[in-house]
């Protein structure tokens, strides 16, 4: 191969310079984008805030008690909305609006408590399994897989049927069932972190397990775990409502949204209005959709995609 040495015919150009300018090292990555809610995300946030307020204040501001009758003297099943019962009355003549407000704190409270429990144990077990080494991890993961292969609703039904339905039992059951899911999630996130060099650096330094878990792994696992919390909460709300709908959740005469739908299903056929069914169903749907809109914003924030450039 002969050496190619055709001299370029292009000009030599030198940009103006002075002797004082120093050439700093350039930053190599653009700063991470700040997170902002989109329009839909804001709507979701407003809806969620609304329901959280109702759940906190509902029992205090509800027009009537949970089992009080707006029209005690009349036969008043499935009435249309009217003064005194703004969302109508239910199958047992009670005020739908008041029950909805009481139900809010119950549905939300149970779901929230259960999700917290699921996170508490799921995260401890998930991260624990990784740091405990491959053998423990293998055993715990297999057991977890076994529980996950059982349909959640069925597990819930059986437990509740066996030991009876009460609010603490509901919380514990849902908490236990979703611990399996959180376990898998936490383990996956932890696996990605534990192979990082900074974790190894801490090991080489001689730092103990406690330091590595609390200072190196946890701060990095927290964000992805928290951003998944919303999704998990939705699933637990749906689970609790479904149990309620099947008559195995919150027991009458206490109200929760799922059991309200069940109690009032008759309104679809012979009610004066459909609201006794629609109202709690819409309540669940708006709450979960609201959470989902916020969650969706957070997750789509991660990473710009190439599709716009095709």
């Amino acid at each position, binding site marked *: 191969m002969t050496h190619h040495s055709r001299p370029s015919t292009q000009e030599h150009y030198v940009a103006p310079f002075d002797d004082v300018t120093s050439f700093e090292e350039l930053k190599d990555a653009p700063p991470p984008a700040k997170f902002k809610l989109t329009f*839909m995300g804001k709507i979701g946030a407003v809806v969620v805030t609304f329901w959280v307020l109702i759940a906190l204040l509902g029992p205090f501001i509800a027009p009537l008690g949970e089992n009080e009758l707006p029209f005690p003297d009349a036969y008043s099943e499935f009435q249309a909305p009217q003064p005194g019962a703004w969302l109508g009355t239910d199958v047992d003549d009670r005020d739908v609006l008041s029950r909805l407000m009481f139900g809010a704190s119950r549905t939300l409270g149970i779901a929230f408590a259960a999700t917290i429990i699921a996170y508490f144990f799921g995260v401890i077990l998930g991260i624990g399994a990784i740091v405990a080494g491959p053998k423990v991890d293998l055993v715990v993961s*297999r*057991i977890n*897989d*076994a*529980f996950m*292969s*059982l*349909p*959640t*609703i*069925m597990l819930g*039904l*059986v437990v509740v*049927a*066996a030991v009876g339905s009460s609010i603490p039992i509901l919380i514990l059951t849902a908490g236990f069932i979703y611990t399996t899911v959180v376990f898998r999630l936490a383990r996956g996130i932890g696996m990605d972190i534990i192979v990082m060099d900074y974790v190894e650096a801490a090991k080489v330094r001689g730092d103990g397990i406690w330091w590595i878990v609390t200072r190196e792994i946890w701060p990095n696992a927290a964000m992805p775990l928290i951003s998944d919390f919303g999704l998990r909460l*939705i699933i637990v709300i*749906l689970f609790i*409502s*479904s149990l309620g*709908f*099947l008559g*195995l959740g919150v027991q009458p005469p206490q109200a929760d949204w*799922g059991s309200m*739908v069940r109690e009032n299903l008759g309104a*679809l*056929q012979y009610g004066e209005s*459909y609201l006794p*069914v*629609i109202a709690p*169903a*819409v309540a*669940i*749907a708006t709450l*979960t*959709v609201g*959470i*989902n*809109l916020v969650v*969706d914003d957070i997750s789509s924030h991660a*990473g710009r*995609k*190439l*599709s*716009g*450039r*095709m």
Partner: protein
Amino acid sequence: MLSLIAKRLGIGLITVLAVSIIIFLGTKILPGDAAELRLGQSASAENLAVLRERLGLDKPYWQQYLSWLVNFVQGDMGNSLSGDTPISGLIADRYQNTLIVSGLTALIGVPISVALGVMAAMFPGSTYDRVLTFTSVTLVAAPEFFTATLLVLFFVLFLGMGSTIVSGSTDGMGLFELIQHFALPITTLCFVIASQLIRMSRAAVLNVMASPYIEMAILKGIPRRRIILRHALLNAIGPIVNVIALNLAYLITGVIVVEIYFSYQGLATLIVQGVQTRDFVLVQSLGMIFCATYVVIMLIADIAAILANPRQRHPK
């Protein structure tokens, strides 16, 4: 590759065994045994002892477990506690309904949803994409009975079509008649699985769309359709198959709410019955069937994903 599949099979088997132990022990923890439940509270100790011996309940747990497992594998699930009918017969009746509804839902829902999701990924940010994404975000988060109620309101009460309750024998029905018969549950379930399938297949394709080889395809001037269908979809098969499998498993094991809502007799209502009558022999068998179904479906999905991956198919 074969060793990978063998390993996956082994894991599936271990999972099923672990579940069988969990289920067996679970029923032992519950108060009362089969003999007590069958004879009732007032039964004498002698009668109980006799029945226990006949049912093998006097043997050590591990023997009981083994004979239960062996019988189960041979298709003998014992008799139900209430009614003393063979469980396999009970289940067979219900399985048919469940399979019809799930099969039809899958047949209609899965291809449409995946296609919609992939199309959304083709035009991200377009009006079509936004409407579809919003609808599926909404539906994925709404409870099944909400969707069912909306459908009932619209079709039955507004349009006056069909009825809120699905009942009667399906013997001798053709495909079209079956679809008509189960129209409402099938539509509800289609919506339920569609929302998740649309979202996940869209996400799976978009995830691949961030890869450098897609950028390369763009820089080679490859048209959009080909980028999606040839370059991206092939690499998104694994995750898409996985969601499909999860949804199929749900269709067989998780449709309790929909069955109850429309009061048709499927497997899920059977389990509710079992729970309500404390017939845990029945519940035990159903639990095993559900778990095995789940494991088999996930196994097929995993093997499909292994086969779809050229790294596994064509090792170095």
